[in-house]
């Protein structure tokens, strides 16, 4: 083919094969689809961030020495790995979709990741403030057994009565200062809460999931010095089931 004839050949081919430019809407649609998936990924990342904030906030950082021996081990023990993984995956999904928009190539990986993390953090704080972090954590615990298993570590830290830590559900009220509690291993306890400080406006009612810091007086008797809300009722019930399962399967003893 001669250079001069390339144009003629191309036009001839276009006419012979009746080629038509692809419609404008197909390009717009493709671009909108990529932007939509980017926004969806960003929203999912933000919700993951809301749960991470919720889980970090319900951690009892002031009790790290008592719970796990050190701050580092508390972090390692309770880091919300699942949600960090979700956040990371959706940050890269967001990068993929933004990169495939019409002008996405102009942004570097570092810039997109920084923008995505920043946006997820801001939206995550808003979602957490609206209570979405707690709702999602509870819903996941209720519906996905694997997720409950991840929460098991957190609950296990609070079943150490010898170290003055106890958590469970209030099953009976004797009077304003004395009640009965079933811990996550379904062990019953009589709690003396005369000297207890109540944290976070906690209400001592039947069915309430609580954490107690205090002292084991005798088998089944615990002196409460401080009472805190468990933070998430479904997570608590799921942990109870796992404790029972594990105790049955491994003969776990306190």
């Amino acid at each position, binding site marked *: 083919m001669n250079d001069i004839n390339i144009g003629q050949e191309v036009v001839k081919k276009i006419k012979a094969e009746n080629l038509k430019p*692809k419609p404008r809407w197909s390009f717009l649609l493709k671009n909108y689809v990529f932007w939509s998936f980017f926004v969806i990924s960003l929203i999912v990342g933000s919700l993951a961030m809301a749960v991470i904030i919720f889980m970090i906030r319900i951690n009892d950082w002031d009790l790290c020495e008592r719970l796990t021996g050190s701050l580092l081990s508390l972090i390692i023990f309770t880091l919300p790995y699942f949600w960090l993984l979700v956040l990371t995956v959706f940050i890269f999904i967001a990068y993929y979709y933004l990169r495939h928009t019409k002008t996405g190539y102009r942004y570097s990986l570092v810039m997109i990741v920084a923008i995505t993390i920043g946006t997820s953090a801001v939206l995550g704080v808003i979602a957490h403030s609206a209570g979405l972090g707690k709702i999602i954590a509870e819903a996941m615990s209720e519906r996905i057994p694997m997720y409950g298993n991840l929460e098991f570590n957190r609950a296990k830290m609070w079943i150490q009565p010898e170290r003055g830590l106890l958590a469970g559900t209030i099953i009976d009220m004797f009077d304003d200062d004395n009640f009965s509690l079933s811990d996550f291993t379904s062990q019953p306890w009589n709690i003396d809460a005369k000297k207890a400080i109540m944290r976070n406006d906690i209400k001592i009612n039947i069915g309430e999931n609580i954490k107690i810091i205090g002292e084991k007086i005798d088998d089944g008797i615990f002196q409460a010095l401080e009472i805190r809300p468990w933070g998430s009722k479904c997570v608590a019930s799921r942990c109870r089931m796992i404790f029972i399962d594990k105790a049955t399967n491994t003969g776990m003893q306190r």
Partner: protein
Amino acid sequence: MVIIDNCQDKTDEELVALSLTKQDYFLYLIKRYEQKLLYYIKRITNISHEDAEDILQETFIKVYLNLNGFDQSLKFSSWIYRIAHNEVIDNFRKNKSGRENTNLNGDDNFIKNLSSDLNLNKELDLKILKTAVHNVLNAMNIKYREVLILKFLEEKDYKEISDILAKPMGTVATLINRAKKQFREEFERLNIKL
């Protein structure tokens, strides 16, 4: 063929709009870019003239099919170079077995631009310098060779190269720096033998 006059004064963007209403206008866009793109394709690949023409033809067909997707925020030249670049890469992937060499025949300005920017040995005769540059470029990875050709031969700026290669400007700057470094090292290595 319908003869359409007075297209010399029209911008690329106007010709795109006209091509969408009447196919024959597309011929003017082809005429504007066929030589430039043919040289570009040959410079970065040095495939045979016929193969380069085949790639060019495919490039123009893709340009025509995607005319409605032309992003007005880009220069038309960047957009059409990008399509040519993608066609070359596709072709390169399909025929990976063949070693791609560059063709710099008649590109004295490129040699001068490059040797001046990289402070190559100015004492060398142009003919010898050209052979050395040719050998060095052939030894380089196509991604480095291409950015050097876009920068020093096509004389595109960073923004245009970014739009052609669909990479962030920072990445383009890094690629050019690495390409220059690799070129200089390879040149110095080869120059000893000259």
